[in-house]
């Protein structure tokens, strides 16, 4: 059990920025980010045994994080006791140049719908259409078409 916990902690350390990024893009304030972050970790811990290594671990993590964020409204109804687990950064309130840049990105992506937001995030992450498709349950061609439309939509914003 301890070995499994250590392996999980290592996994979280390696992918924390990905998980946090997804949560950040789907949140409106710092508390919500932290709640989603914790909820994602809980879901990852619950599901780690079912991960069959058929896909890349990063793909699986993205899928868990996105599912958690997309289902946040439903989850909100069932208040779960959580362990405060967060990172010492607040892009919502910090006023340095980097945080301002990050906030601009948050605002741009925030204008998109939930699914489009997820697609853009993965595209920005540098994931291939195959990988994005694996997370979203879409064909690579479909991913390409959707991303093209999103980009067109963003140009008009």
């Amino acid at each position, binding site marked *: 059990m301890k070995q499994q916990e250590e392996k999980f902690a290592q996994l979280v350390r390696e992918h924390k920025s990905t998980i946090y*990024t997804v949560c950040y893009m789907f949140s409106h304030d710092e508390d919500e980010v932290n709640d989603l972050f914790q909820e994602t970790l809980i879901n990852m811990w619950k599901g780690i045994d079912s991960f069959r290594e058929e896909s890349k671990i990063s793909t699986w993590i993205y899928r868990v994080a996105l599912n958690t964020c997309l289902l946040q409204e439903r989850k909100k109804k069932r208040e779960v006791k959580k362990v405060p687990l967060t990172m010492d950064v607040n892009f919502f309130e910090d006023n340095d140049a980097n945080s301002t840049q*990050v906030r601009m990105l948050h605002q741009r992506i925030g204008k998109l719908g939930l699914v489009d937001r997820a697609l853009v995030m993965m595209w920005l992450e540098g994931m291939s259409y195959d990988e994005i498709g694996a997370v979203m349950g879409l064909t690579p061609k479909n991913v390409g078409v959707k991303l093209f439309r999103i980009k067109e939509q963003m140009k008009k914003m």
Partner: protein
Amino acid sequence: MEEMNFEEMRNQFAILKDQLNKQEIISDHLLRETMKAKKSAINSTKRMEYICVAICLVLYPLLGFDNTISLAFIIATCLMVIVSAVATHYIHKPVDDLNFMRDDFTTVARVMAKFKKQYNQWLYYVTPALIIPWLCWVCYEFAWKNAPEGVNPWFMTSALIVGVIIGGAIGLYYHFKAVNAAQDIMNQIEENE
């Protein structure tokens, strides 16, 4: 112009990832919960010691009824275990008084360091000072003074020494369980700083 926007977004995303990669996940509460669990390892050592003391305090006076062992030995043994129990209580008290969910980490680390030091001092100095004379005395009482007829006293002595070694091994296991738990708490606090 549009491509510039997407390029800018990529740069902003890179900034976000870079900022997050520099961060450590903070979990004050998780650390405190772990410390609480470690405290139970420390307490199990204390409970074990109290159980041993209670057994000795019941068993040795009973042995005195058939006059096989001297009253002085019984009193000395009972006094020894009472002293051990009092010392255990004294060493453990600051740990018992700690509130792992509330006290600051500096206090916790200080108490743990003191606990570990006192526990080790007890093992390396007081235990041999008490156990070696007591072991000689117990061999004299059981193997030499009251050896059953036809039984070689050296054989009895060997059996007693084996018993003491087994008891000592159990005692050392519990000792290091407590000391390692204290050390783990100190390490976790240090890592968190």
